[in-house]
């Protein structure tokens, strides 16, 4: 019996050893990927693939443009619209009427999440061989996060104003991918500080050079262009001018519209010379709720261009037939955009930089510089040799010209809403009016309604305070 016991002990020992061996080798064994198309992103190429997701990135909210004054709907068409589009059109106090899943909020925050996954994953120490790629990824992720934060802030937070710096009506600033911590609103100062900080770092990390075959991957000029746009929205005109200038110094190409085929539905190519960062309006049925089909181009013949805006284009101005299907007197509608699609463009392009630099110059009372940029731009927009050139008598006149040309050049680029908020703060005193079957709706300058309500599902699932709209 004792011998047997010893034997048993030996056998048991063997089994224990076997199990131990299994345990020792199982680390590698259990680390195999369950499927070749799935992975926990760890390599730089994995992160590049996340940032290359153009179904998530490169999409901008449309609620601002929908609330702005570049277009109008006929009453019968307005009647067929979705509740939210109807409400946004007439600046109703409650736009969503209980309906959640709003892509205007969700998609930019999804961009923030994707960018945060990359930023969290990249860590701080790149290998010596991969510094360039690491820098490009770090810079791109920061740029994309800032781009999303800025877009959200233009719709759901009050316009930047030094008097509001400590008011907690900024947007939630999620800086890590972990979804567990609750969201809370930052102050307006924090919101813009974060955007500028991200863009400053992006400018540092992003590679220099001209826009390349990947217009979804930002280069340094794109970060500078974005900084110019952000500072402009903050009414920090000298900084806006400086960043626009840096960018244009590095890259200043413009498309000569005379080279475009105006008969085509989409005359401007995807890899056109001006686009620095490609983005377009949120469109179609994103998620479960169809989104602003009218503006996003789903039924674009029904989105009529504001008559005054349309009339402001000279017959020799090619933008009239490249941006629009020109059907006088007030039946014109949208045509292909810089996104090479009937979906409007929402990215960054050099033409905007000329206008920012011009506005900065005008506001710095440098009318000559301002008008030089306008001339450069418009000579590429009018039929060759037809642009007569502006003659201005004062910097105020120059500024008015720049602002008029800004609206004409950058219509349906997702910029008008921000401009309205900014220019009204500067004292433009623009009142917007909609006429539906004889009923007039108005939006007073600097109204609370310039800040759109936060979607109801966000409010109910978080502790975020709703915007006040009376």
């Amino acid at each position: 019996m004792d011998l047997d016991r010893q034997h048993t002990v030996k056998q048991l020992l063997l089994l224990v050893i076997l199990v131990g061996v299994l345990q020792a080798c199982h680390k590698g064994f259990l680390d195999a990927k369950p499927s070749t198309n799935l992975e926990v992103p760890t390599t730089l190429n994995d992160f590049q693939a996340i940032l290359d997701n153009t179904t998530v990135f490169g999409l901008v909210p449309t609620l601002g443009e929908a609330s702005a004054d570049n277009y109008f709907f006929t009453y019968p068409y307005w009647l067929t619209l979705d509740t939210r589009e109807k409400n946004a059109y007439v600046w109703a106090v409650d736009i969503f009427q209980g309906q959640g899943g709003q892509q205007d909020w969700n998609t930019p925050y999804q961009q923030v999440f994707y960018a945060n996954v990359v930023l969290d994953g990249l860590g701080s120490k790149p290998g010596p061989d991969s510094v360039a790629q690491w820098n490009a990824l770090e810079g791109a992720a920061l740029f994309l996060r800032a781009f999303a934060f800025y877009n959200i802030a233009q719709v759901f937070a009050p316009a930047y104003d030094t008097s509001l710096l400590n008011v907690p009506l900024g947007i939630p600033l999620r800086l890590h991918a972990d979804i567990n911590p609750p969201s809370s609103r930052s102050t307006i100062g924090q919101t813009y500080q974060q955007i500028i900080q991200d863009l400053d770092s992006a400018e540092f990390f992003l590679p220099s050079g001209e826009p390349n075959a990947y217009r979804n991957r930002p280069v340094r000029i794109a970060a500078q262009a974005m900084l110019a746009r952000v500072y402009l929205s903050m009414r920090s005109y000298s900084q806006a001018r400086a960043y626009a200038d840096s960018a244009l110094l590095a890259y200043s190409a413009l498309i000569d519209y005379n080279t475009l085929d105006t008969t085509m539905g989409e005359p401007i190519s995807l890899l056109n010379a001006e686009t620095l960062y490609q983005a377009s309006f949120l469109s179609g049925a994103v998620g479960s709720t169809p989104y602003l089909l009218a503006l996003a181009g789903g039924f674009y013949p029904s989105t009529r261009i504001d008559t005054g805006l349309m009339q402001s284009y000279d017959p020799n101005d090619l933008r009239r037939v490249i941006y629009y299907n020109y059907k006088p007197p007030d039946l014109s509608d949208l045509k292909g955009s810089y996104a090479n699609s009937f979906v409007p463009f929402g990215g960054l392009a050099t033409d905007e930089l000329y206008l920012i630099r011009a506005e900065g110059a005008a506001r710095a009372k440098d009318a000559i510089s301002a008008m030089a940029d306008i001339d450069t731009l418009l000579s590429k927009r009018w039929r060759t040799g037809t642009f007569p050139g502006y003659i201005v008598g004062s910097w105020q006149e120059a500024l008015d010209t720049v602002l008029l040309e800004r609206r004409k050049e950058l219509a349906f680029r997702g910029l008008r809403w921000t401009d309205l908020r900014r220019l009204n703060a500067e004292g433009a005193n623009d009142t917007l009016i909609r006429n539906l079957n004889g009923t007039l709706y108005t939006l007073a300058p600097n109204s609370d309604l310039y800040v759109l309500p936060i979607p109801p599902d966000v409010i109910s699932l978080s502790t975020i305070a709703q915007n006040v709209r009376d």
Partner: protein
Amino acid sequence: MRTPNLAVFLLCVCLIKCRIVFAQGGVLISLSERNASLEKVLQDIRDQTGFAYYGEGGWPEIARPVSFSFKNVTLEQLLDLCFRDQPLVYKLDIPNRTINVFLRPRQERVINGIIQDENLEPIGGANIIAPGDASAISKDDGQFALHTYYSDPRLFVTSIGFESQVVAMPPDGQKLVLTLKSKVGEMKEAEVVHTGYQTMKDNAATGSFDFVDNDLLNRRVSTNIMDRIDGVTSSVLFNKNVVLGTNQSTITVRGRSTIYGNPNPLVVVDNFPYPGDLNNINPADVESITILKDAAAAAIWGAFSGNGVIVITTRKGRLNQAPKISFNSSVTTGWKPNLYYQPILSSSDYIDIEEYLFQQGYYSPSLPVPNGPALTPVVELLGQVANGTLDSADGYAQINALRKVDTRKDLDRYFYQHSLNSQYALNVSGGGTQDQYYLSAGYDQNQANLVRNEYDRVTLTGKNSYQVIPSKLELTTGFAFTASSTYLNNPAGSDVIYPYAQLADAQGNALPVAYQLRLPYVDTVGGGQLLDWHYRPLQELRNADNKLTLTDYRIDIGLRYAIVKGLDARIYYQFGRGDSDLVYYYSPQTWFARNLINEYTQNNGGVFSFPVPRGGILDETMNTYTANNVRAQLNYNDSLFKHGRLNMIGGAEVRDIEGSDRTNWLYGYNPGMGSSVPVDYVDLFQQYTSGAYQQIPYGDAKIGTSERYLSYYTNAEYTYFGRYMVSGSVRRDESNLLGVRGNQKGVPLWSAGLGWELSREKFYHLDQLPYLKLRVTDGYNGNIDRSVSAYTTASINTAPNRYNAVFSNIVNPPNPDLRWERVHIVNAGLDFATAGNRLGGSLEYYIKSGIDLIGLSPVDPTTGVSVFQGNTANMQDHGVDLTLHTDNDLGKVHWNSVVLFSYVLDRVTKYNEKLADVGYYLSSSTINPLAGKPLYSVYALRWEGLDPDSGNPQGLLNGKISRDYGSILGSDNFHDLVYKGPVNPPVFGSWRNSFYWKQWGLSANILYKFGYVFRRNSIFYYLVYTGASQGSPDYEKRWQHPGDEQHTNVPSMTYPGVANRDEFYQNSTVLIEKGDNIRLQDVQLSYDWTKKAHARLPVQLIHLYVYGNNLGILWKANHAGIDPDYVTGMPLPRTLAVGVRVDY
């Protein structure tokens, strides 16, 4: 039962001895004692003979009482008898007239042996008793080792279900081989159940098992093994109305306890989970199936066991058996399916609707577009009449002729046939004293009831076990090979919606139908430069060349080494590999190839080019799995402490299943040469009909998968006094689930159980119920959801982005709190049998709770994620399983009957996501759990009759009658949503009766399902208008005039069609029907010729059988003519099989 035998034996011994004594002469005694103590007997002897007795201290206490009645026997004879079975011996001192009593001298011997039944199957759990001394219990392999100290020459061997035997002790060193005769009419036959890790007698178990033996498996004739357990196992439900995309399993064991996790029971074939297609297993090679239902039974499978475990044990040879050959063959023929089962609009009604739509101008936008989507022949004719190209009388004559055409006639004639399945199976089995073997070959040839669809299967298996060192080291090897071909040439329909399509002319030539493109367009398009663009369903059927080839094999190696008595070590290894190759070859004659070639044909100013080459197209999908399983295990099965017996296992196993899925497309494929032509996948080509630009479809992809597991487990059962049972198990599983945190890769799961065989207690006196056992178990099973991960997981998108760069989607946000799903099962059971086993059965009640189930929860979208998949849901099932069987002799007829009754209803107890409106819960094609209701539930909208003025349906919106269908469907008032019942039957079971008379056997099985509901289809005008639905004869009952609302619920026909109006009607309570039904599933009739009855028979047995299946519904609750098992599709046709089994 044991006592009378012993008495007879004693009597015989005594009679023999008496004769000898008479011959020798001597002192004779007559004495009679009844249950007297030995001391009393010695006192009586002293009184009669004067012989005094002396003994070592304390002997009377250990002596056993004796009973006898003898006249005139010698003193020695009497004493021999009295000291038999005593731990004492005597010495007769005649001179001193004393009897000295001593303790029996100790002399240790070990007796080894094996106990088997008449079939030479080992008997485990038999008691081998050396009277008054020692006892041993045989192991599962029948082996025992008895350590005895005394020299009593006899051994008593008893086992439940067998006649007891008394045998002489074998001479030293010789092995005892003993065959026990099974007792007829034994109380309760103990079944040997297999868990995949060990075998055990179910009467020693605490858990819940269901066992299907070989006879029951062979009762049914089928190609697939799973079909054979339908209706013969309690709590196993075959779900017939599984909707794709809703994560339903076709087989559920004890209901449902997961939402998005794996819903299928684990299938184990010979020790290891089987990852291949179950069709690869030939039922002829299956010995038995065990179903593990509760925690104690299934927890040994840990994280795989949450949905129950089905253990398939294949056949093997037997020790000491001459080669036995068995041959089984059957032919099954099936009726054609009933094409008229699904009610659709008659051709005439359909044409009426088309004419009505034509008058309303519905087709006006389509008619002027020659290259637009297909229009039906009637619409084309009406168009020609309207634009004057066809004479009106002529046109209407043609239309009226079409009213008499019914596509189903052509389908029935050209697409369907009687099915014919042939099965052949041959096996040889046997064994010597140290080896056993089983070899089999099977061939199945099935001709489906769809013309040109076939299935062939060849199976080969072999199993061998060999005692390398007798009773010390055993080697087992096995292989199983399956090759099958499935021909999938018949799409089971014509892809044509309109009911008057003519598929063939009178000579059987294929006719073109309107399909995708308009007939007048395809008649003329291309001016001879394009391939024929007509679509002829019958030609498609004849030209189809689609085949699935499966090859699957398994190799098993097992080693068992006996370490010491009761303890052995085992190592098992299984290698499995399966390849499937699905080839769709579209020859240049098929519409698929012609259409693609034509669409991509480029016309550059009259110069035609063909970017899709003019040739065949080959679409091939190859899937492969390779499985490696290794297990090391220790088994202990022997007595432990006095009266106790321990059956314990412990071990570790590694599983690795590597898969590869690959698809290939080849253009211009020439099957004769295997050649193909490269195509330009990059450039855009203008489509011939639409003018849009598209790339040539690209079909090449490859994905590799890897499933790896590492598990540790132990399971123990301790039986005390044969009536108290305690069981427990622990298992830990670890896997390569992507990114589950290291410390959560594994999940420990456990179970515990108690059993009490009440009827073995001394105080138990229920003679009517001689077998009664109570058992209760508690524990956790697990389930795996391979779609979630604790780490951020990205999935590479199959197509690149706009800039031709690969991009990925984040499919899983980081979830550090992720846990594996668990299923907590509490089971209480009662087993009983009446005397002679006339009535027996078991009753079980269980509560099954799914905990930490993966569910969807809404999350603040600011996080970047709006729906979160995490451990947020819970479910609970309550269930009852009742099995009753009765065995009766009615004169010469033997009748047995088995009633199975199962009740199980699940309820989602916690679910965080509630969708915005009631509309989401009406769809049956998505999973929409609602807390408090079964996972799969039928919901409906309240019905308030038809509007008497218009025939519009009316519903309820916020308590008020409403015809605002959009608002009713989009209401967020959940009071307007009516829960009608579960999709799957909560009550189901069967009643099987078998009769035996002489060599005849007759058996019939009746299945029933109760307590569930289904939604029947009615007319959906909107979809009929768009050509997406074939409608319903309810059309004839539609509201047409005021007053009709008194006797119909079918809304009036309106133009234009209003989708929401139809949607409301289709989802209203009036179309919900009860599913309850009783059906006669099958009948089997058999006749046996045995060698016993017919001495001249050249074989041992000829078993002839006739089997009818899917015989029909006996009763159903709904009056709509719908078989609730086939709400969509057609019921399985009846089949009739004739077969024979010959045993040599």
